[in-house]
């Protein structure tokens, strides 16, 4: 009995110890000597957020491919190719942190391209700060990400609270006295909740009546909430969520014989899936966008927004959404900062810090729009330049309708088929 137990204890110790050593066998490869720029992509390639995560990866990859076609990033007259490494966050913050550490320690990346979700971003931030590796994110829209003033993290997309807030005000202005009451609903998950809260804030600042503010769990039955909205009968219904929720919402509302006078959602409205799956029912829905393929932005690598859209379509078979676009634009930020830095790779820790400072000073025009990072306040290191535009689906097309400076069409209110 005693012998067996001690044998097991020894066994356990040896198993753990040797397992650890086997893993630790240093990954020897020709690193640090090559003149390439090593970029690590941390995103959710599996798990719940697999879909969004893969969009971000496509965005980053498209940029890498395009820049490498030219030979790489240009620094002081020479071109240095970009090499991409990937770490799957598995839609979990802890795995994201592991992935970041692995990319930094084992793959020795110089810069990180950030995750799809804010949760993973938050977990990776301290790691990015500890090893002083700058991270540029094309996604992650929660305002929480910037509250801690992360020195090494930069975000391309303005936080949702900014965009949803502004869009309600723009809408209210456009509709004038026709719209007095608003009901705000949203999915109880970070992005959607923050969007909904942004809407609510906008409603309060615009002086409108908030008839209802309610969150519901993802995958919930929408019948109760639509029954309530039908009962409330507000002038505007604002929904915070991803596109699948919007699609369900519109379908459920139709089956309960309810069409609000105005229905504003968020980015998802501009996605191809929304229009395709709903067909006619999508017409009249309002959305918010900081980027669509029709906007008049351009840069030297991708051309115009529309050029980028076609490029992405040719490469991946689908038109890009704003997430993909933001991620590709992240690469442009790196390009510009590296060029201004003027130091050739391989980069050491000290150089990375200088690179980070260079990124902070970014002020460029891209196909995605203008990019400049705030250096103080609640949206520290967030790109606050893009102007959200309210769009409306008309005959299956996304048409900007407000503010008047960006409008290409007239805002239709009430929307077609309103009860």
């Amino acid at each position, binding site marked *: 009995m*005693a012998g067996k137990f001690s044998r097991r204890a020894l066994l356990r110790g040896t198993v753990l110890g040797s397992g650890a050593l086997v893993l*630790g066998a240093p990954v020897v490869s020709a690193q640090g000597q090559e003149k390439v720029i090593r970029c690590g992509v941390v995103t959710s390639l599996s*798990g719940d957020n697999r879909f969004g995560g893969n969009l971000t990866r496509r965005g980053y990859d498209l940029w890498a491919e395009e820049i490498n076609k030219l030979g790489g990033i240009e620094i002081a007259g020479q071109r240095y190719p970009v090499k991409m490494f990937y770490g799957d966050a598995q839609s979990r913050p802890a*795995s994201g942190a*592991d992935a970041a*550490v692995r990319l930094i320690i*084992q793959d020795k990346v110089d810069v990180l391209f950030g995750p799809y979700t804010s*949760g993973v971003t938050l977990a990776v931030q301290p790691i990015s700060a500890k090893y002083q590796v700058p991270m540029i994110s094309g996604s992650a829209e929660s305002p929480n990400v910037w509250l*801690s003033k992360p020195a090494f993290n930069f975000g391309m997309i303005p936080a949702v609270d900014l965009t949803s807030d502004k869009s309600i005000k723009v809408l209210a202005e456009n509709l004038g006295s026709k719209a007095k009451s608003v009901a705000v609903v949203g999915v109880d998950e970070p992005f959607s909740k923050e969007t909904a809260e942004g809407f609510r804030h906008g409603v309060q600042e615009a002086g409108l009546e908030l008839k209802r503010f309610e969150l519901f769990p993802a995958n919930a039955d929408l019948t109760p909430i639509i029954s309530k909205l039908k009962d409330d009968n507000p002038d505007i219904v604002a929904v915070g969520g991803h596109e699948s929720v919007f699609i369900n919402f519109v379908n459920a509302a139709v089956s309960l014989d309810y069409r609000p006078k105005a229905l504003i959602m968020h980015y998802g409205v501009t996605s191809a899936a929304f229009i395709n799956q709903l067909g006619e029912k999508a017409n009249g829905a309002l959305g918010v966008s900081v980027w669509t393929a029709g906007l008049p932005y351009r840069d030297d690598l991708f051309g115009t927004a529309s050029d980028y859209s076609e490029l992405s379509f040719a490469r991946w078979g689908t038109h890009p959404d704003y997430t993909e676009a933001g991620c590709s634009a992240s690469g442009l930020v790196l390009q510009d900062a590296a060029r201004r830095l003027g130091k050739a790779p391989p980069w050491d820790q000290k150089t990375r810090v200088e690179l980070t400072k260079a990124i902070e000073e970014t002020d460029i025009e891209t196909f995605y729009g203008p990019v400049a990072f705030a250096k103080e306040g609640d949206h520290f290191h967030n790109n606050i330049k893009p102007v959200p535009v309210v769009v409306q689906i008309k005959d299956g097309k996304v048409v900007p309708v407000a503010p008047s400076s960006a409008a290409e069409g007239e805002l239709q209110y009430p929307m077609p088929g309103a009860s």
Partner: protein
Amino acid sequence: MASNPGQVRGNLFRLAAIAVGLLALGVVPAFIDPYSLRIVTGALMWAGLACAWNIVGGYAGYISFGHSAFFGIGAYTTAILMQAGIGMPFLATLLPSVVIAMIVAAIIGGPTMRLRGAYFAIATWAFAEMLMQLATILDITGGTGGLSLPAYLNEFFFYYTMLAAAAASFLGVWYLIEYTRFGFRLKALRDHEPAAEAMGIRTNLVKVQAFALSAAITALFGSVFAYWTTYIDPMSVMGPEITDQMVVMVLLGGLGTIWGPALGAVVLWITNRYIWSTFGDTVVYLPVLGLIIAMVVLFLPNGLISLIVGRRRGRELISRILRKF
């Protein structure tokens, strides 16, 4: 207990083996890079969690599908206490976290453990999901937005903390089971409950004590995990995934054995991380996990440890444990 030269020698040998094992683990950080250190730290955590689950699942004989609740209680207690407003230092949060978990376990353990096997499983599952919903709704937990903890990124610190916690858990459980009256009562309970009652053992009390102990250890690891990851949300610390892994690890390693859970935890965790870093994408892990459980139940119900200890002994051990139902 030691009462003859043979047994004294056996005990010494046992202790020596443990000391060697601990020493080996203690010097590991000197040989491997920070990333691999993270992996080993993770393995230690899961070994500890498996050990905790085994107390209730293997020893008391109640399959709990709700242990993630205690992991979450530990994680959230530490996270909340370390928030800017309260700002407690990490080590000070460990005691409240463990105590709260024990209190919750004691409160629900009493009535819940009166239920038979499968009912208990469902009840614990319902309880865990209920707590996760609460965490999603309340503001103090940050709702679905989660909580961020002050970042302290010293991999060595976390490695040694996890090692200390895991070692304390295993050695503590081993000592309790083999050398104390509590352990004696627990084993009597597991072997044959009516007989134990007839002998005057208050089986309800023992069951609740075991449940509370298990909860306490689980919460401890939850706390360390929260500080280690620096960001938690309901899904990541209270989700069913945590319970799933704990159950599989113990089943795989060997239900109701001292070291089986450690073996199962290490094997599964290393496999998981290996698949992840090699193939970049571990969607395949979940169905594989399911397949492993099915295979273990069909072909290796006594767990991997039985392959080492010997099938006969392992089977003996397991049937005695599980017959208590």
